[in-house]
């Protein structure tokens, strides 16, 4: 999986700069993270990776790398 592409898509969904993110970023600590940002990420995951993550599972993911791993395990 193209990690940089994922970071770019994640940044685009939250309307922030990709340069502010790394795979180690704990996305819930971003000031832009809220329930609407979550909807944008859900849309991005569905559109780009055809994947849906239920909230109970999503809650266990902390970093961008956690999401990347989830996508790789479930594609």
């Amino acid at each position, binding site marked *: 999986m193209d990690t940089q592409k994922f970071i770019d898509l994640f940044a685009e969904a939250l309307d922030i700069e990709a340069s502010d993110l790394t795979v180690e970023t704990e996305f819930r600590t971003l000031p832009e993270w*809220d*329930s*609407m940002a*979550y*909807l944008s990420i*859900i*849309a991005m995951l*569905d*559109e780009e990776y055809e994947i*849906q*993550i*239920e*909230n109970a599972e*999503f809650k266990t993911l902390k970093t961008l790398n956690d999401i990347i791993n989830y996508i790789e395990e479930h594609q």
Partner: protein
Amino acid sequence: MAYLEFKGVGITAMAAAVPKRVIKNREYTEFWSAEEANAIVEKTGIEERRFADEATCSSDLCLAAAEQLFADNDINKEEIELLVFISQTPDYRMPATSVTLQHRLGLPNNTIAFDINLGCSAFLYGMSVVFSMMEKSNLKKALILDGETRSKVYSPRDRRSAFLFGDGGVAALVERDEKFGKSTFSLNSDGSRANLIMIPAGGYRHMSSAETVVEKVVDEFGNMRSDEQGYMMGGDVFNFVIREIPRDIKKTLAFAEKTADDFDYVVFHQANNFINSYIAKKMKLDTSKIPSTIAKYGNTSSVSVPLTIVSELKNKLDGKKDLLLSAFGVGMTWATAIVPFCDCKISNVVEVENGVRI
């Protein structure tokens, strides 16, 4: 596959009523900053909603819509032999609001009257019930009344629902006529997701008590509500909707041997613009065929599909038009309907204040 098909039944007239009171979301700042409000409006596309005053119930909105429908069409009330009221915000826990509306509308005592409690997909469920009873009987005319006052359900201090919901009521007259041809319904339910959208207290599982009315902080963002107020787990609802709704529409179209291009209009439940735009994009639908009232009325639950038809398709339903309807929400329940409209007479949207039409 649970598909229902009916022949020679359709909606011949429609009317709608909304409360006079307009809530402008960008100015909905009693508990929120203008910056937060603007950000939510940008995302949801909901600029305004209508809020019922204390004296106005769902039934009053439906009554006003029905009175307008009677005023604009030559209808002998004695011929209305079936009345179905659709709502999750009824007047009382009992009796059924449909029965009080039979009396308030001056309908005869041989009117069949009952309520359907289901949520956002309920107008489609209700249509299927009424179409079925009409097709298999000699009933002359039926009236579907669908009203919601969701403004009274959600906490203004829970950001996840405070900006979304509005109130409205509709009336739809159903008659038999060969000109309608065939209609098709796909109706679905998934009770394993009952907890995604819920008002936990006030029923008989968690009866109202001093405890249930206490407003509490419910999450790490500081959102507040009581158990008597509704909540929505937006992320899981969205996940569910983007998976199931395109699938159900595709299956229903395949069953009916149609494509999305065959329809004059596609009317979706008005959830919010983010969800609705995403579904349209994902399904590659022609957005010029998708009327929207999300900006001016917000999410009115089961009322949103018929309210959008009344508000946006007046004067556009002359002759025969084929409509594809899709609605989804609390339950979860979801439904797709293929419904022909023939010369449907649509009234102007009327306003209600202090429980009466103005």
